[in-house]
């Protein structure tokens, strides 16, 4: 959450203006600019249908990013979330085999797997003092290997209609997966700003030694943040595999760095202690819009990579230099 300045007694328009020049507010300006450019460049891009498609693609990454924001707020990183997504996709696919028979136990098992991975990450970071970059990269490798072992290289089975409906279906025109993501963002924002756990997490991220001295259970909060990220990733995995309909060993590729990028664009500081769940979600939407728009322009693939890289670098530099001085 953007830390609200003490001078909060100013008028509402001023407050709004202030919000947009904070790290987590600026991403909305970026989205608005992108949409304006897109509207000028193409007639069909800024249409309800298309934006809902973009939001649907962004749903799984959005959920994984909520967890990532929690971890980054503690000053950590979670590089293993993509591997959780892959693992969940193949486990769900193989255990369910396209049938609803064991739906509830398998979904719970997947979420529990995510929690267990998070617990492991949290323990090695908080208790063993292993740098999160190395620790969660190790977990990433272990999970990737496990997915190969479980599938023998070729995912089997399939995803039943029920999960596919959540991943693919719509309610009153809105993608269900997007609604799930929005609900999860609301939940994450509540957790971070309105609970003791959330407030302690922000505190310890901003100043670990002060937090420790004030009696904040630092290790426990860090472990819980990783557990939350693991569960987020598992949930994201279920949505992603509901979208594709079949487990895949490459499903989670790129989620770790994309979720970190989205979090940073959304105003979360890699140093910890400051950030926003809603901003992270907006960062995801910005990334998805940008990818889609560059494709829309019919740019060559190499051109897409270069433009995307340049825009992302500019966004991160702005975050670091302008809004966070």
């Amino acid at each position: 959450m953007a830390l609200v300045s003490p001078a909060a007694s100013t008028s509402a328009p001023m407050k709004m203006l202030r919000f947009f020049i904070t790290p987590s507010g600026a991403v909305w300006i970026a989205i608005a600019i992108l949409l304006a450019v897109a509207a000028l460049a193409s007639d069909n891009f800024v249409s309800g249908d298309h934006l809902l498609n973009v939001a649907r693609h962004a749903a799984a990454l959005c959920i994984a990013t909520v967890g990532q924001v929690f971890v980054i707020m503690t000053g950590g990183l979670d590089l293993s979330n993509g591997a959780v997504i892959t693992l969940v996709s193949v486990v769900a696919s193989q255990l369910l085999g396209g049938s609803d028979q064991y739906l509830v136990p398998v979904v719970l098992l997947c979420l529990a797997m995510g929690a267990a991975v998070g617990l492991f990450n949290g323990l090695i970071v908080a208790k063993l003092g292993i740098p999160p970059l190395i620790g969660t990269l190790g977990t990433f490798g272990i999970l990737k290997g496990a997915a190969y072992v479980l599938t023998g290289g070729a995912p089997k089975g399939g995803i039943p209609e029920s999960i596919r409906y959540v991943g693919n279906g719509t309610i009153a025109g809105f993608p269900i997966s997007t609604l799930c993501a929005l609900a999860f963002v609301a939940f994450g924002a509540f957790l971070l700003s309105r609970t003791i756990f959330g407030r302690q997490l922000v505190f310890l991220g901003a100043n670990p030694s002060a937090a420790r001295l004030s009696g904040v259970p630092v290790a426990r909060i860090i472990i819980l943040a990783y557990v939350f990220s693991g569960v987020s990733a598992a949930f994201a995995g279920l949505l992603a595999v509901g979208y594709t309909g079949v487990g895949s060993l490459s499903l989670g590729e790129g989620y770790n760095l994309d979720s970190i990028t989205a979090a940073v664009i959304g105003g979360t500081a890699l140093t910890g202690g400051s950030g926003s769940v809603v901003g992270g979600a907006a960062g995801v939407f910005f990334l998805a819009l940008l990818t889609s728009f560059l494709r829309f322009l019919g740019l060559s693939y190499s051109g897409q990579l270069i433009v995307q890289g340049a825009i992302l670098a500019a966004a991160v530099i702005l975050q670091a230099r302008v809004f966070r001085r």
Partner: protein
Amino acid sequence: MGMRTNNTMKAAVSAALFASLMSSAFAPPAFSQEPAPMRPAKWSDEKTDCSAFKKEPPWTIGVSNYSLGNSFRVQMFEELKFAAAKDSRIKEVVITNSDGSVPKQLSDIEDLLTRGVDGLLVTPLSSEAVAPSVEEAVDDGVPTVIFNNEIATDKFTSIVWADEYRFGWLGGNWLKEKLGGKGNVVVLEGMAGTSTSDLRTRGALEALGDGVTILARQPADWAYDKGKAAMQDFISAYPEIDGVYSQGGAMSQAAIDALTTAGKPLVPVTGEGYNGFLKTWAANKDKGFASIGPDEPTWQSVEALNQLVACLAGETIEKWHEIPISLITEENLGDFVKPSCPDDVWANTKMDYETIKTLYKCTD
């Protein structure tokens, strides 16, 4: 009433017949003329005399693979294991996987040679970087057969090669004929920077010709989620799409699903022998959906093994061995699609159904 229908029918039939006669008579010859194979520059009819490599069985075969990253590659190596298990002269097959890393592949080959394998199969990740290792193996007296990619040296025992350009050309040509030589086409490509993807697209674009407008091209790694996202963008960006040239894999299935979800007509989409796609094709056939599947066999690994085994037996073998690209069409679709098997099965297999069933947990 009956008579009238009959007459109209007759008229329609003869008109169609006439039209097709006319069109075939006047079609430019290039319309369905197959391209010359896009073989590697050094391609020759040369043979390799393996008398110097002759060895008494049983043999240990080393395999250096660079990735098991997709279901095609997985099945390619299952085919190899299946075939090797049936040959009593083969004692052991040691398969390494370098997981997309060139340095790891080089050390894998080193390890296999140190282990003392009798023959080597290599799918090179980089045709240049892996070449010295292949030369070293041959210098060490280990016959080495390359498959699934090219190699930048002459010093190998045999190469098993499929014409990816022709793969692309066959799909592109079918699509062009389906569209009557003109229309708006979007292109879904494989993994950017791989020779397979590059050659397939080049072949397809060549076949589609100038009459067809290419609205957009996008690499989607043969993957379902990337293919679907790209196709949904295409659908939003271009109101008039008359056909989809897709390099296959799960992307073709994703393209059909995206069209269906958007409530768009099922325009022709090219595919490949991927079961998920074949099932979707079969399910939409009656709704007027048309497709074609150029097919590169997963058993190219077995062809490579056969070359190697023949060499170890001291025979003279082809140095350049081409495997055919076959076609899955509306007529023979039923022979290839496996309705009770998961999506990740590749249709053109030399494994028996019992093995496939156990391997992939098919339900029937």
